[in-house]
């Protein structure tokens, strides 16, 4: 249920994002995107700029990539999301991102940790193909330990087959 909503939202936002300008160096934030910078660089700008990473109107505020059952392939519907984050990393060489892979609760905790790692690695691979540097990205796994969907049914499991994108400082 939640997942469907999330996917819908992302596609709507992708549509919006295509009309707005991609984030550029002018919003570079030395604190690596966690908060709007408080230094002179941003103060010079004419209008207060929303942090693209948290601006709900920006695709960069979307942070979850969902996977099919037993799959580690980044689906086409998440390409634009992953590419937007890769672009941000390319434009902000000081930015660092943590990719956290997750799995559903079925099976061994340690094996699930390794499966979650595969989901994080898949997103990392897609980001580096889109121009992000490997040194900017750390892919890790939370396995089944931090479920977003806490039920014991397919809708929760689908919710938990996921990689989350977290910028340093978040």
């Amino acid at each position: 249920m939640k997942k469907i909503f999330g996917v819908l939202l992302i596609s709507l936002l992708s549509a919006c994002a295509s009309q707005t300008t991609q984030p550029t160096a002018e919003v570079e934030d030395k604190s690596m995107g966690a908060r709007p910078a408080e230094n002179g660089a941003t103060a010079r700008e004419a209008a207060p700029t929303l942090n693209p990473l948290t601006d709900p109107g920006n695709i960069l505020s979307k942070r979850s990539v969902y996977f099919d059952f037993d799959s580690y392939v980044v689906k086409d519907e998440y390409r634009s999301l992953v590419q937007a984050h890769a672009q941000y990393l390319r434009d902000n060489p000081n930015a660092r991102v943590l990719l956290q892979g997750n799995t559903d609760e079925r099976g061994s905790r340690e094996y699930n940790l390794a499966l979650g790692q595969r989901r994080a690695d898949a997103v990392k691979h897609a980001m580096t193909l889109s121009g992000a540097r490997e040194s900017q990205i750390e892919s890790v796994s939370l396995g089944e330990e931090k479920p977003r969907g806490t039920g014991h049914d397919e809708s929760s499991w689908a919710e938990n087959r996921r990689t989350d994108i977290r910028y340093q400082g978040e």
Partner: protein
Amino acid sequence: MQIGFPKFPLYVLFLWLAAAPVQAALDIEIFGGGATQIPIAIVPFAHEEKLGQSITSVVGADLQRSGLFKLVDPRGLAPHEPMEVVYPEWVSRGAGALVIGSTITLPGGNVAVRVGLLDVAKQVQLASYSETVPAGQLRAAAHRIADLIYEKLTGDVGVFSTRIAYVVKEGKKYALQVADADGFNAQSVIEYTEPIISPAWSPDGTQLAYVSFENKKPVVYVQTLATRTRKAVANFKGSNSAPAWSPDGKKLAVVLSLMGGSQIFLVNADGGGLQRLSQSSGIDTEPSFSPDGQSIIFTSDRGGSPQIYRMPITGRASGTAERLTFEGSYNVSPDYSRDGRSFTFIHRNGDRFNVAIQDLATRQVQLLTDSKFDESPSFAPNGRIILYATEVKGRGILSAVTSDGKTRQQLSTQAGDVREPAWGPLPRPQ
């Protein structure tokens, strides 16, 4: 010998009450029972009723939990010395072995315990034991007595004086706890609001390795139980997990994503000396050392589905990994028995996840459970019992099954989910 029992002053009684046993963290229920159980009668020890802690009830519960004993009711008969035993009475009750004994409270509060183990058929004493313990350590003394009886009658090592570690999740709080093998005396080693998994005992029982998610990713720590000090021994870029101690306690096998994928590495117990062990393009995880330290068994999906493999610690590892499991498409979480003859693991059986055991020589596999979600099997040091996590009515509990599958028991807490059990080593000789 008849033991005179001094009238003890009231303040001693008060001390006993103050030292009353801590509320059990884990309650135990026992199911089933083997066909070849030893019938044993345990007579409440002389003056035991005056102690704050019964000894014989702990001994009886220990023996019963092993699945190898059947308790014979001693009611109406109360010998405390071999001289007082009328053997035909015990023969007629079907007892094969008889345990008798006495307790004396010494000035200062210590308790002197004397125990005799008698063979009813042969009418001889098989063993005797005496010990003086502080009143607060009567449970520990009872476990030692149960170990002695178990060893004398089965020829195997008793594990009643060992400890177990496990994780309790209650609300958003995670606690790594250590308790006696019967679930009593539970104490938190560490508590967090982030998950803790995969506790592993050092071979000498003084340290626990575990994986904590407190820093947004899995990191392997080693914590010394006595001092509570801890050190991150694997905190590399990426994920760090699945610690397993080498039998000499000098190294840990860990799983790292440092070099891509999830692969098994060795680190020194202080975190230095990183060395890659497995080389595959798939997932290699859940290492468990053979008792001689020469090889590990582990879970790998290199063949397309997760299966158990074995490989030597030295040499060109990737070429020599040998697949051990072939039945089914999901065999994970192996734990080597300490005699090196078998391993226990989780086998997916339809939509169920069950504890299984495989003999390394014959390759024979036996399913030991039929529940729905079993995880993390861990051998007792004598290989006779396997502790594992399971689910009952949506709650995580610990369960134990004898390695012949005949006796099961459940250990449950008052609240919360219990998971990730690890059975500790035998206590070191004192």
